[in-house]
């Protein structure tokens, strides 16, 4: 069972205080989008073996959503950061590259 630090209230808590929300940084495609765009938004997920970015909500705590960068193999947590971002912040990316020199970077 993971521990995560909520960047919104500063609490480090066990996984049971949080609820998971799937892959982070998805772009919403609404009316007017092509079938491919809509499919990508709704159904296509990276599900990587390794570095992953995901959404979490501090459901039993402050109620806020945040994002986490995590390795799905080792369960190492590289960091958590605000949900109000379009891509991982530079310091998180740098930390991941430090730990996983072969990582191709966020795309």
């Amino acid at each position, binding site marked *: 069972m993971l521990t995560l630090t909520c960047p*919104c*209230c*500063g*609490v480090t*808590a*066990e996984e*049971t*205080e949080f609820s998971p929300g799937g892959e982070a940084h998805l772009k919403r495609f609404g009316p007017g989008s092509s079938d491919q765009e809509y499919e990508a938004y709704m159904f296509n997920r990276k599900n990587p073996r390794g570095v992953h970015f995901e959404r979490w909500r501090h*459901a*039993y*705590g*402050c*109620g*806020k959503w945040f994002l986490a960068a995590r390795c799905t193999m080792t369960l190492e947590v590289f960091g958590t950061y605000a949900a109000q971002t379009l891509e991982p912040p530079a310091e998180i990316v740098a930390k991941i590259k430090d730990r996983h020199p072969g990582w191709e970077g966020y795309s």
Partner: protein
Amino acid sequence: MSDMLNSALPGAGFAGFVTVNEAGLRGMITLRGDLSSPVLAGVLKDAMGLDMPAQRRVTQAGTAFAAWMSPDELLLMLPYDQAGAMAQKLAGALAGEFATVANVSDARAVFTLQGAAVFDALAKICPVDFSDFAEGDIRRTRAAQVAAALWVSGADQVTLVCFRSVAQYMFDLLCAAAAPGSEPALYA
């Protein structure tokens, strides 16, 4: 009016290795807005005499308290019969601000836990490290299967707030946690 009003579990109490008492009616106001805004802080000070609490802290002025609930939410506590008027006053003072005031005095149940081993009882139901908890700290967490806010409201005293509908569950849970003979001797 008093015979028309009931808290969630009037008079419920239990004396275990920690005492558990339903705290009765308590005025509560949810205030959402930009907590770093000087306007908000000014209104809080003017209307209730309260300082803006820091992250996960509770401030006090007389019988009024302001508890930090999330980066954009406070829970204001005051005597029950003052809550309606205070909510109106705050809403009026914050007109024009992006802020929301709601009287939630009836939405919750409040329990007072008292005893030197209060954290030993809470450690059975909350996944929280209480070792550094100080008076005036508040922590929102999980108590067994429901959400709760824990506030160190005095020496050997914790005020626990949960939703009104689960008051009976919470009371039964706290009684089990404080049952004599089950002291885990962890913090106390």
